[in-house]
């Protein structure tokens, strides 16, 4: 009676075995998980962190006063006395100026993008959610800015308003608002037509609530990714403005300005002249690759 005996066995014996333990991660956890397994992004994120820390703790790290000139020791090569990266055209320590210069470059890289993200993102969400005439007014106004290449627009605005960090940042912010607005508007328009928004509306949720809980959550991802990619562009543009004399005012250390004044001395200390350019390159490529890694990690389709 094997069969009957088998039938007599408690029912739970036949119960399907528990599925292998799979941890279901939340969205942000999975993003973090992907990031942790992306060595390239991690390395460049570490570089960005170093640059940020160097800029923040510049007064502690810089071996010399970045403004202290000494014409007798101008244009010295790498390793001259205690000047590891040599000296510039006025005999100021290159390493100290490079460390301090990072402050301006990071500020010019991050602030315009941050403000543009808030302003442009808000305009985009409003335009995308409201649709119709509001959308037309906002987006066509942005199209006007699109008619100019970004570099030309930044130079024109900074040129019209005069030099200085404030005007430079304002110029870059104005340049970044239209693309930011467009990204936010596209994401909002896609979300707006989805069923769950209709459902939320049917349950009596107000516009602000819908935007806050259902739209922003979906728009934030693409906007953040795009913003992170703009940081490197902003650093490059800011350096370009300083190179043309439209950015920071001398003698403030700034990589673009340093590159501009040192280029006349390229036949004397070629490597020293290349240092600010290398700093701009490393910083912008680091931000770019970190942004790329972030995009890959945050892409829900992967």
């Amino acid at each position, binding site marked *: 009676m094997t069969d009957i005996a088998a039938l007599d066995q408690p029912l739970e014996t036949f119960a399907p075995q528990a599925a292998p333990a799979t941890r279901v991660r939340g969205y942000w956890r999975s993003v973090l998980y992907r990031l942790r397994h992306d060595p390239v992004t991690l390395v460049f994120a570490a570089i960005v962190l170093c640059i940020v820390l160097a800029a923040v703790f510049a007064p502690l790290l810089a071996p010399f006063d970045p403004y202290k000139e000494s014409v007798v020791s101008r244009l010295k090569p790498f390793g001259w006395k205690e000047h590891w990266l040599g000296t510039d055209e006025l005999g100021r320590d290159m390493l100290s100026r490079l460390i301090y210069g990072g402050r301006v470059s990071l500020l010019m890289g991050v602030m315009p993008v941050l403000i543009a993200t808030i302003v442009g993102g808000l305009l985009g969400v409003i335009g995308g959610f409201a649709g119709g005439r509001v959308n037309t007014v906002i987006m066509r106004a942005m199209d006007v800015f699109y008619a100019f290449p970004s570099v030309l627009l930044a130079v024109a605005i900074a040129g019209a308003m005069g030099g200085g960090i404030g005007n430079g940042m304002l110029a870059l912010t104005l340049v970044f608002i239209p693309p930011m607005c467009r990204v936010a508007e596209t994401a909002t328009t896609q979300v707006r037509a989805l069923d769950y928004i209709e459902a939320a509306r049917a349950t009596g949720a107000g516009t602000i609530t819908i935007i806050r809980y259902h739209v922003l959550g979906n728009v934030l991802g693409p906007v953040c990714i795009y913003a992170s990619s703009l940081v490197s562009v902003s650093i490059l543009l800011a350096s370009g403005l300083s190179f043309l004399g439209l950015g920071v005012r001398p003698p403030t250390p700034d990589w673009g300005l340093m590159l*501009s004044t040192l280029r006349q001395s390229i036949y004397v200390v070629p490597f020293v002249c290349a240092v600010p350019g290398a700093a701009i390159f490393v910083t912008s490529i680091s931000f770019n690759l970190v942004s790329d890694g972030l995009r890959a990690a945050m892409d829900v389709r992967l």
Partner: protein
Amino acid sequence: MTRRSRNSLPALLIAAAATAILVGPAEAGGTLTIGMTAGDLPPTTGNPDQGFEGYRFVGYNLYDSLALWDLSESEKAADIKPGLATSWHIDEGDAKRWIFELRRGVKWHDGCDFTADDVLWNMRYSADEKAPEFNPAQFAQARPYLGTYVGIEKVDDHTVAFQTKVPDALFPYEISYLLMISPCRAKEVKYDWTQYALRPSGTGPYKFDKTVAHQRLEFVANADYWDKTRVPKQDRLVLIPMPEASTRTAALLAGEVNWIEAPSPDALDRLKSAGMRIVTNIYPHNWSYQLNFVQGAFADKRIRQAANYALNRVEMKELLNGLMLEEYATVPPTAAYYGSPVLYKYDPDKAKALLKEAGCLPCKVKFAISTSGSGQMQPLPMNELVKSQLDAAGFDVSLDTMDWNALLKVGREGVADHLDINAINISRQTQDPFNALIRHVWTGAWAPKGSNWGHYSSPDVDKLVEGILSEFDGDKRLALLTKLNELMNEEAVLLFVAHDLNPRALSPKVQGFIQAQSWFQDLTRVSVAQ
């Protein structure tokens, strides 16, 4: 001709043509190719733009003025000499009437004769809005030199008389900047100035050959030039605009050009090691600050003097690799009217004491500066050094950096529109007495009408200036000018920094160049070895 020789004729012609192509035209004096600092080619329709570089390379080569600059010597400051006019004098009965005797036998490049009617035509071309030949673009260029001009009349075929608003003893200097173009050619092209620019005709030592817009301009020697001592020794002159100093240096090293203007001081060693010749000379240029006399710190003479004492010009010279002369007065010491001015040698203690006395410590001042520009030398590092030196003596300088044209606009508008700016850093030419001295201090030259940017005004100075303008005796005028220069130093009307040494780098093939103490240079003596 035999059948055989007839058959070989085409072959001979081809061979001859090939030889001609391979050998090229016979160029005994060679081709002088110049990398200019200008951002674009100056126009060829008379008075050029692009500052004095336009006059140096295009204006005075294609054209002549009634009075030309004597550029034959490097030892003394250049002065004017007879050009298309052989002599000039003031009308004995009228101190506002200048009479110019014109040179006979001069021909335009198009073959027409140069006469008094041509001079009258040219003045209408530059200054008479109602005349059919009036060219507004030319008026804009000529305007700075027409300050006292009222009208012109023909006395005979070879004599003209200019009328001035007030007695103006310095009028011949103004005339030296007004270039004469051919009315014959203008009529031929029916006053189409675009066409004229492509077929210009003057009386100058060079004739126009061809141009590529914005890229190059080519002249050939005018073998029939009226001044036989200045018939060009080279066959061809090529002008290329290259605004970036490193580009000019690279072009010279690569052999693309054989003459460059204003190499960067830090490129000199590299150029010398490649066998290039660096030529420099004092010339009437200053790199100073014009000061705000209306409002702020520099309205006080003690603070102006303190700033001058705070400057270590020797250190500045080191910054420029030796390519400057320490500036202690508006004009360099070789100027005829230099005299014995008070010299503000480096003395930071005295500067501090003066600031303390004036009650301005730290003394906050704002300087408007440019990032580049014609004659501005190395504006950023130089201004940073000035700031560093002044700050060390008790000033607190902030530098307001702007584009060159924006700074020029601030300069033209004058202090009234920019009261918050204490000083502007615009290099000035100082090659004639008006531009060297008078325009900085005369109430009649207050900006925006003139170049007295900071609105300096003093009854004594004005009286002296009026005395100079109405003094037709050269020696007496020189004494008055010397007095004015000394007075300007006593008053510390500028923040004196540097006189440029006008560096140029020449290929070893370039021979015969004598660098005059002038913004203009005579290229006719130069030959280029093959």
